[in-house]
């Protein structure tokens, strides 16, 4: 502030007002660097107005000059238009470096059969990197980023158990068409004791030590038309893939969290709950949202996640 003190108030023009009797404000000219930067922005604006869409004129607007963008429409015809972000995006998606590279690989993958892709290291590297993004965006919200699923809600894709089949064509079908997972509710079919018996039998299928008499009674319900469980779960309890019926003989549980329970009573309760309330789950179909090539990539990715068959 020593600087201002040195100048006498008369040397530089002041704004003319005085506060508290003697506080005045200098009216210095703007610094030259600031002034020239300001003029530069004015020139920039004038050039911009000429080159880019800018001024409204009645029901339309000035389109600018020398800014044409050419893209290809769905009939394969070249279309040229004035600069705008939508045409720019379209051109980028058709002609950009990333788009061209990714299309080159996408075409290669689309033309190749599954065995070809699985046997080719380069195509697999491409598949893993693209499908990881696709999986993260479309599948991970339910199935988890590692495909681990949520017990009771969404199946685990990283294990060896496949409700709807784990072969490549099954997985492709599941992703494209979606599934309605359905098991009827049996609360009106069985009384509490029958539910107990049935739950014990179901638990015995995967090697749990249970009351044998109860299990034998449950077996009759399971294997006959009294319960009709075998329609979908089969007589052996391994489940019909065409119905998305669970294999009850392995130790993998997707709805009742049996493995999370330590004592038999809790395990039984959890199985009973599924039998009495049934199951209703939906996997959406993706054929409308994803291209055939994208579904192919995801199929390979999911097949790789767990024990693809």
């Amino acid at each position, binding site marked *: 502030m020593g600087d201002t003190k040195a100048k006498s108030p008369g040397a530089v023009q002041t*704004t*003319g*007002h005085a506060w508290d009797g003697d506080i005045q404000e200098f009216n210095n000219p703007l610094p030259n660097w600031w002034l020239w930067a300001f003029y530069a922005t004015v020139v920039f604006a004038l050039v911009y107005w000429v080159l880019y*869409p800018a001024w*409204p004129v*009645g*029901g*339309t*607007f000035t389109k600018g000059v020398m800014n044409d963008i050419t*893209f290809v*429409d*769905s*009939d394969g015809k070249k*279309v040229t*238009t004035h600069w*705008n*972000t*939508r*045409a*720019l*995006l*379209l051109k*980028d*998606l058709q002609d*950009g470096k*990333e*788009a061209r590279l990714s299309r080159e690989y996408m075409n290669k993958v689309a033309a190749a059969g599954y065995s070809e892709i699985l046997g080719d290291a380069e195509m697999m590297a491409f598949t893993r990197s693209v499908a990881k*993004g696709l999986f993260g*965006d*479309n599948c*991970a*919200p*339910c199935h*988890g*980023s590692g495909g681990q699923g*949520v017990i009771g*809600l*969404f199946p685990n894709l990283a294990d060896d158990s496949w409700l709807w089949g784990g072969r490549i064509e099954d997985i492709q079908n599941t992703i494209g068409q979606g599934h309605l997972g359905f098991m009827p509710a049996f609360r009106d079919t069985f009384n509490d004791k029958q539910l107990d018996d049935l739950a014990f039998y179901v638990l015995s299928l995967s090697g749990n030590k249970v009351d044998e008499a109860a299990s034998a009674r449950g077996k009759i319900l399971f294997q006959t038309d009294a319960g009709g469980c075998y329609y979908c779960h089969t007589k052996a309890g391994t489940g019909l893939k065409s119905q998305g019926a669970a294999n009850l003989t392995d130790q993998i549980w997707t709805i009742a969290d049996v493995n999370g329970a330590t004592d038999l009573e809790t395990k039984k309760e959890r199985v009973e709950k599924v039998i009495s309330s049934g199951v*209703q*789950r*939906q*996997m*959406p179909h993706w054929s409308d*949202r994803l291209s055939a090539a994208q579904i192919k990539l995801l199929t390979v990715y999911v097949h790789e996640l767990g024990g693809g068959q």
Partner: protein
Amino acid sequence: MIKHESIETNAGLLIVLTMIVISIGGLVEIVPLFFINDTVEKVDGVRPYTPLELRGRDIYQREGCYLCHSQMIRPFRDEWLRYGHYSLAAESQYDHPFQWGSKRTGPDLARVGGKYSNAWHVAHLNNPRDVVPQSIMPNYPWLMTTDLDYSDVQDRMRALKKTGVPYSETQAEYDRNVAKFGADVADKLDILHAEENLMKQALNNDYDGQRSRITEMDALVAYLQVLGTMVDFSRYDEGYFAEFR
């Protein structure tokens, strides 16, 4: 001519003049859009929300979803790849106020409709970490346990009608909606049958998995499931949308 000094020494006048100068900046950007013919794309399928979706939208605003979620996909390659087709002006023509948002703490929701199942939305809104372990979104468990208040849904529709949303009350307005949207949609936009339509949609679709009651969850999921689904993009050449800029 007003002197510099008289403006600076008169706070009221200074405020008024400052506001005028600043509003010119906004007006020159916004007003021409009202008169340019190609501002709103001409597409089929965009309709006002049904009564249930409308109440869901109210809950979306009440819970402040817009503070973390945008509904505006911009025409950039990364957004195209992640969220889908960029948003059209036509898609928010019946939104008052629009829900474009300005901050993406969570993902954009402009095309979330149909992407996840109803059960997923219910699980996710109750506790997002049940389905997305790394999520930082709060829990909204009360949606599931609070019955939806739809006693005033007709008034809400009437209010929106004043802003230009074509809900119908008279036979003439209904007929106009039939011509514009088809009879199925026109029935759902009828203010006089709003409550009945709301109950029907909630019970038929059972968004929250509790068939016996209509909760706020039903309404919010109904709203989320319709977002971005009204325009069938397979019917249009991509170049068509570029004509509107």
